[in-house]
Structure formats: C-alpha cells, structure tokens
C-alpha cells in the first residue's frame, strides 16, 4: 500500500494518542477518582486507527465495552471522554454512561452498548437506515472474539448479506474474553470466512499492522459504498493488559506469561513507530513533539474532567424519555 508519509504519521499519531490516554488512565486508576469500570485498549490500537482512517466523518461506528480506542480514532473529543470517566456532567454521556457507554453523535458514534454482541445488530440497523435513505454512508461494527460467540452475529450478518447492507464487521480477536481463551469458546475459524466466500468479502489479518488494517478496511468500505454489501474482517491481536481495571487489579494465573511477553514484543505502537523511523517517515523531533502535544492534551483533559461539575440528585430523573 502506498501511503503518503503524512498519512502514515497520522496513523501513528492516532495510535500513540490512544496508547498514552490508556496508559494515563491505567496509572491514575487506583486513585479511585474514575469510578467506572475501564477496559483498556492497549495492544489493539492499530485496529481502531486503521479502520477509522478509512472512514468519513459521517460514517457510523458501533463499539463495545472496550471502546476508548474506537471513540478516539473516530474523532471523539478527549475532554468529553475523560469527563465521562470521571462521571461529570460535561462527559459525553453527562455522567450517566461511564466508561462503557461513550457517545459522539457528531462523528457517527450513536452510543455504545456493554452487552457483548449487543451492538452488532444495532450497527447493522444503522447500515439499513443509510441504505433506505439512499445515503452512501457506511456503518462499521467493532466487536470482540467473545461477541462472535453470540447468535446475534450470525443473524445480523445473514440479514446484512440478504439486503446487501453497507456494513463492515470488524472482529478484534484478542484471544480472550475475560479469562476465557478463544479455544474454550470457538472451534476453529469462524464459519463465515470460508462459508460465505460467494457473498461476503472476508479477511483474517494481522490486527497489529495499521496499514494492513487500513488497506483491508478501505476495500470493505468502498465495497459497502458501492452497494455491494457487507464485509467481515477478523483482526488478530492481543489484549496486553487485564480485562478490566488497572494492571495491579488483574487476576493472575489465567494467562501464560510467555504469551503476554511475546505479544508485548509485537506491540503495534512500538513496531509501527520503529517502521516509520526506519522509513524516515518520522524523525526523533516529530516524535518528541507528538509526545509533548499528546501529553499536554491529556493533562488538559484530566484537568477539565476534574474541574467539571458532578451531576446531582436533581438530574436523576432527566432524559428517561425523549420529548
């Protein structure tokens, strides 16, 4: 794939930003100010980044409990996200949603479900809406290997195929669902890969390679825009930290340390940074500048969140119904 240096730097910067935000959350989590369960995206940054780079602002994404990366890559405001994690009124969901329920209507993120698999049909329905309105918008659904256990995945994909909906299904196979490895839940590759080659564009790719993710997503998105129907992209990756919370809260013993170590060595952010440095798409100065900018942005977002007002009892009964 021939990307401009600028495009490459954008990919890298998006990944780096997601990484640094996640790290900061992790490092501050024990302070007990973010009273909401966080599911960190460390190790998976290339996926959200690569896919969202293939999208327009008005395309939709649908995410899950592990949503920080998707939200940010799609253009979400960091301040509004951090305020949500601090459960403030200035949060993207005004403190009603918390970490698992981010929303960003302006960028096509119409709200995030923490029911595993729950977002798959919803993202499919958004694709249906775009098709019915004769828009060329595309709906992307991000979900985990755990969500692919759920029957809604099969039902949704069947419907998307039937109607040729502009939906791209992105499965982030990070090998685990909480403490359950994929092989205690699936038996071999997903049946859609080989079972629907006549109807479905499907690919199983290295999810740690942002350029490959972008390239594959672009094919899928173009196909969707042309009205040729859905795609299914399985991105192989790894959840480097624990399922939820910060590192010190991760229960020990369910994963092989060697497995974690091997994937740490394949860190998508470090690897891509090294690649761009080697290609001279990036130099030490740009790197340092980016780190400084990101760090300042994060500081500002945390400060914004901390200074923002908390919702009060008087807010409790708002918004049950839409007028």
């Amino acid at each position, binding site marked *: 794939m021939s990307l401009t240096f600028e495009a490459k730097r954008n990919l890298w910067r998006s990944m780096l930003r997601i990484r640094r935000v996640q790290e900061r959350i992790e490092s501050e989590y024990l302070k007990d100010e973010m009273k909401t369960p966080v599911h960190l995206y460390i190790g998976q940054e290339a996926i959200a980044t690569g896919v969202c780079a293939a999208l327009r602002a008005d395309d*939709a994404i*649908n995410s899950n409990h592990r949503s920080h990366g998707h939200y940010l890559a799609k253009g979400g405001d960091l301040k509004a996200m951090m305020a949500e994690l601090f459960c403030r009124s200035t*949060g*993207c*969901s*005004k*403190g*009603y*949603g918390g970490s698992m*329920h981010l*929303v960003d*209507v302006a960028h096509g993120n*119409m*709200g995030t*479900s923490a*029911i595993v698999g*729950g977002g*798959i*049909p*919803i*993202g*499919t*329905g*958004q*694709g*249906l*809406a*775009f098709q*019915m*309105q004769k828009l060329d918008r595309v*709906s992307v659904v991000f979900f985990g290997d755990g969500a692919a256990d759920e*029957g*809604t995945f099969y*039902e*949704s994909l*069947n*419907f998307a195929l*039937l109607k040729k909906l502009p939906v791209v299904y992105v499965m982030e196979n990070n090998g685990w669902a909480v403490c359950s490895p994929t092989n205690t839940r699936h038996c071999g590759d997903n049946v859609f890969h080989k079972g629907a080659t006549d109807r479905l564009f499907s690919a199983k790719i290295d999810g740690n390679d942002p350029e490959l993710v972008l390239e594959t997503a672009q094919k899928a998105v173009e196909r969707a825009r042309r009205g040729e129907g859905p795609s299914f992209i399985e991105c192989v990756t790894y959840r480097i930290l624990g399922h939820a919370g910060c590192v010190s809260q991760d229960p020990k013993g369910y994963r092989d340390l060697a497995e974690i170590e091997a994937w740490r060595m394949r860190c998508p952010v470090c690897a891509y940074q090294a690649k761009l440095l080697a290609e001279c798409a990036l130099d030490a100065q740009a790197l340092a500048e980016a780190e400084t900018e990101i760090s300042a942005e994060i500081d500002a977002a945390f400060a914004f969140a901390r200074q923002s007002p908390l919702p009060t009892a008087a807010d409790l009964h*708002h*918004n*049950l*119904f*839409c*007028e």
Partner: protein
Amino acid sequence: MPWSRIKPDTNEPEFLSQDMHGSATRGLAASEPDFQRGGPTGRRISYGEATNEALSQALSLDPRVFVMGQGVDDPSGMFGATKNLHLTYGRERVFDTPLAETALSGIAVGAALGGMRPVYFHNRPDFLLLAMDQLVNHAAKWHYMFGGAASVPLVFWACVGRGWGSAAQHSQALQGLFMHVPGLKLVMPSTCYDAKGLMLAAIADNNPVLIIDHRMNFKQRGIVPEEPYTVPLGKGVIRRNGRDVTVVAVSHLVTEAFLAAQELAGEGIEAEIIDPRTLRPLDEELILSSVARTGRLVVCDTGWKTGGVTAEIAALVAEKGFGSLRAPIARVANPDLPTPAGYTLEQAYYIGKDDIRRAIVNTVRGQEA
C-alpha cells in the same frame, strides 16, 4: 381455522368514550378535521382496517417510517393489520424478515438511531422473549444512558394469540413483563378508534413504544374517522360512569367489563369502567380520582395474575388511594399457569365477563368468606 371463530365479528359496544373526540385527541393533518369539533364522523370499519389505515397513513405522511416483520407481506397480513401495504409502499418500506427476532430487534434499534422510524411487527408477544435484550437492555435505556444524546423512536407490535388451542407458547399476554421496564411505553388499545389513534401516536413518539394487541379485538368493528389523528399516550378514558366501583380493564377486557357492568346496572350496581389505553405511562390520576369517588376497585388483565398488570394497579391504589378504599381490591386475571391447549382447559383458564361480574359483586356487596 374454523374453531378460531372464538368471538363472532361484532360491533364494539357504544362506549361513553368521552375522550374519543375530546381535547385529548389531536389531528395530524394540517387542517383540523371535522371529527375534532363535531360528533363522530367516520366509517364503521374493522379493527384490522383501522390499524392498517394508521400504518398506511404513517407511511404516506413520513418517509422515515417503515414496517418490518416476519410475514408482514403475507396474504393474511398480520390479522389484516399490514395487509397489502407492501403493494402500495413497496417491499423496501414494508418487508418480510428472517426469523431472527433477537438481531432484527437490534436492527430496528439501529435503524432508528440511523434516522428511520421502524415499526416492527412481532406477531405474538411470545416471540418478544427473544427480543428482550434489545428491547430492555438497549432500546429502553438508550436515551437515558447517553444523557439524552440519542433517541430510539420505534414501535414494536405484537398480538396476543388467545384461542386456536394456541397453547403455552402462542398465547401469552406478557404486558406484565413489559410494564416493569422504565424507558418503554406500553400501549394496549381496546377499540377501533384507539387502535388507529394510538398507532399513529406511537409512531410519532420519539421513544420505543410497544403495542400489545389482542386477537379478540380483531373481531370488532367500530366508528373510525378517515383522517389521521393521534390518541395521546398516557391518557386513559372512562368508558362508562358509575358510582359504586371502579373497574380498570385493559384490551379486550374493556368490552367484557362493559358488558358485565351493563348487566349489573339492572341489579342496582353502577360500575365505572376505566380503559387506561396505555399502561406506561399509566394515567394514575384518572384511576385514583375514580376510586376516590367509588371507594372500590376491581382490576382486570388478560395476563397472569402474580406480578402482573393487576398487581401494579392494585398497589398504586393501596399506596396512593388507600384513604378512599372501602373494600378489598379485587384482581381478575388469568391463573398463574401456562396456557393449556385443550379447549375444555382453555375454557377454565380464560377470564371474561362472568368473572368480572362476580368480582364486582363481591367487591360491592362484600365477599362471602
């Protein structure tokens, strides 16, 4: 099926229906139609035709509206409710679906988020049990969970399948489950007029609305204006005035309660019949003020007794209207059993006019313990 003629086609009773053409009703068409000012103008049409007309008008008034569901384009068209709509509006806006109630419900949610206004016909409430996750975990919570940032305007519809020997999995009246769910509006029409007006109101509403209809209603014919109009959600109506006892009944039991009340008028008991029309929001005010006058309450529902609609309405009055109560509250509901298939068992299972009558008499005259 021949034995499906559980209730002959019949004109619905001439209810008092104060509200029918009153202020609570709102015309949808630009010029306020006649029926709003004067007496009933409209044709006598069947319940299915009334529902069908509402759908048809919604489809023609609002390009965002579409109708989906397993069998909506069948020759029978969901008891007539969706009949031939696909011919007029095309299969893009009125379409059949796979039997995949879980995902299709989520697809409806997503379509709503994407700017459409889906109307999903689920056929029987029994099948809604496959849609619970999307309805309860998603649709009902979406607006609140995101602090009001997004909304899910959709209508789910299902029709209770009483009779036919439909048995345990094809006859459930599950409003008792859905009444418990905050964020969901729950509608149960009882007249042709309301079937149309409530459907149009549900489609116009910006929230998830579940309409639970009833096979027995589809045997009715009633006066229905031709113009589009809405009956407001959350407003009940007094179907008959009475001083001795308040009878709250839903869906086709409104007619049964009305008939029981007419019989009892001859015996000196005057029952006030309330049709809440929507169970959520519930018109608490209407019920409480009626009980304040009568001092007695009988609640009738087509669902199971324990933990159902009759429980909530009874509890409401025991909490907020206790001061006016002069007798134990009576609940008339189906027994706490799955529906049996056999017709002799069905006969023992289902409640109707006579059960309501008995409960009224006991409540007014005092029970022989």
